[in-house]
């Protein structure tokens, strides 16, 4: 009974919205808004064919490579900069400036430097996504508890062991907050890099549909991007819940006290 109620809460509003959409397209034919049935039909037709391998998969692959590289660079750089006080003081203002540059402006810059290539698109994603991870990691490393650090030190946990057992876990809540920002930024940059100058990929395809007034196809592309965003968000939330189980548990105990 309880499960049924939860299910009703989850599904009721989306069902209502789809129903409203269906009803609104019932009478007259609207040029901009396809019927739900037409959209579903186009969705399957457009995206589950050769396009899946020529546009969708390469886009996702570039996104993954870019985001993973940005996370690795951000975490490694952040641990390094965060552990060395003078290095942090030296670099922080410059890094804050780089973070403040709206990442999409890097697209024309990198096109100039690297040409219109796959590596350019990956570089766009990396150079936009690295800042939230980097700056959050620095902040997290800086905030490692003094007593905990002393404890580790007295037990001879130094060097790499210190990074692995103390610094990284301790900074993980901040690091993951940065990763979350990077993921949504990465998706945006993937689309823009393909829309701006490209001949393949999700972003390019969707813009093509729009230019040729293939409206249901265009909508189906928007749905693909939406699903991609939702899937990434769910995977992230699942991973975060597992990695930070201790953190959320600890917070709960503290709040209850």
């Amino acid at each position, binding site marked *: 009974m309880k499960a049924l109620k939860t299910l009703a*809460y989850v*599904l009721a*509003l*989306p069902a209502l*919205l789809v129903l409203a959409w269906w009803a609104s397209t019932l009478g007259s034919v609207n040029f*901009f808004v396809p019927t739900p049935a037409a959209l579903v039909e186009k969705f399957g037709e457009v995206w589950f064919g050769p396009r899946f391998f020529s546009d969708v998969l390469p886009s996702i692959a570039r996104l993954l490579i870019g985001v993973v590289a940005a996370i690795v660079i951000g975490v490694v750089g952040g641990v390094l900069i965060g*552990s060395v*006080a*003078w290095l942090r*003081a*030296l670099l*922080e*203002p*410059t890094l*804050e*400036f780089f*973070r*403040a*540059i*709206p*990442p*999409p*402006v*890097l*697209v*024309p*810059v990198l*096109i*100039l*430097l690297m040409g219109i290539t796959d590596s350019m698109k990956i570089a766009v994603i990396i150079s936009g996504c690295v800042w939230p991870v980097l700056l959050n990691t620095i902040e997290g490393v800086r905030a490692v508890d003094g007593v905990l*650090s002393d404890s580790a*030190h007295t037990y001879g946990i*130094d*060097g790499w062991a*210190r990074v692995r057992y103390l610094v990284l876990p301790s900074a993980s809540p901040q690091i993951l*907050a940065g990763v*979350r920002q990077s993921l*949504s930024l990465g*998706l*945006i940059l993937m*689309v*823009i890099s393909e*829309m*701006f100058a490209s001949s393949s990929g999700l*972003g390019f395809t*969707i*813009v093509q549909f*729009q230019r040729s007034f293939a*409206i249901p196809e*265009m*909508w189906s*592309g*928007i749905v693909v*991007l*939406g699903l*991609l*965003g*939702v899937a*990434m*968000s769910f995977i992230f939330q699942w991973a975060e819940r597992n990695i930070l189980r201790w953190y959320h548990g600890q917070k709960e105990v503290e709040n209850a006290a």
Partner: protein
Amino acid sequence: MSSVTSDARASGGPVPGAGRGRRPGRGLPVQRLLGVAGILGFLATWELIPRLGIINERFLPPASEVIAALALDFGLTAFWVSVGETMKAWFLGLIIAVSLAVLLGFIIGSSSFLRKATNSTVEFLRPIPSVALIPLAVLLFGVKIESSLMLITYAAFWQVLIQVLYGVADVDMVASNTARTYGLGWMARIRYVVFPTALPYLMTGIRLAATVALVLAITAELVIGSPGLGREIALAQSGGAISGMYALVLATGLIGVLINVLMRFIEKKTLSWHSSVRSEVVV
């Protein structure tokens, strides 16, 4: 490693344990000087890379040239018109997003039925990248400012809505019930109990939204071609005005920094009365 940690501790004050954390006074000017040195070092590196031919000057002009181009821009009306266009889209988009999010956030947040019923929809719509709406915006509005506004509003809306929902959920039940027993009506409760609790969350949401709004404003100009700095960057790039393009990129960075500073300032001003209860939800 050990020298760094023991130095940090030695400056922790005469009463160890009590003096943990950052000390005011000494250290700050040194830190600031180091920061300035970092920026100068970055500019020097940038200057040297093209000068030494590591990257061709045609693709990466030296820092001095770009800064000169930026200084030149500062004297041009056209530059300030572009900045104005970008800021107009940013500001209007932000206002619309915040108004909508506050209105919906308080309505949804104050009813547990609405919270539960909308949760799945919010969680589903929020991660949709706003750039997915670019084709639709072009179709509906072309290169007019409405295109930018649509993208900005969509992206900024969720940042604020989520924070407001958290903030309203954070309202102390005891305070709320107390207010109810004293006969405060729905509006009065919102005004005196819910709003003050949610305000720190709201300000966090607005600060995050302000950054996102700038990103989307520039994106719309860059990709769609609505007027503003983003379009100027694209034009400068395709027109081969490379120093000009880099100067504009620097300008967007400066605007980003200014927005950050401004937002932190506003946040501090509005929340000065209860800085102790300030909280931020990482979402």
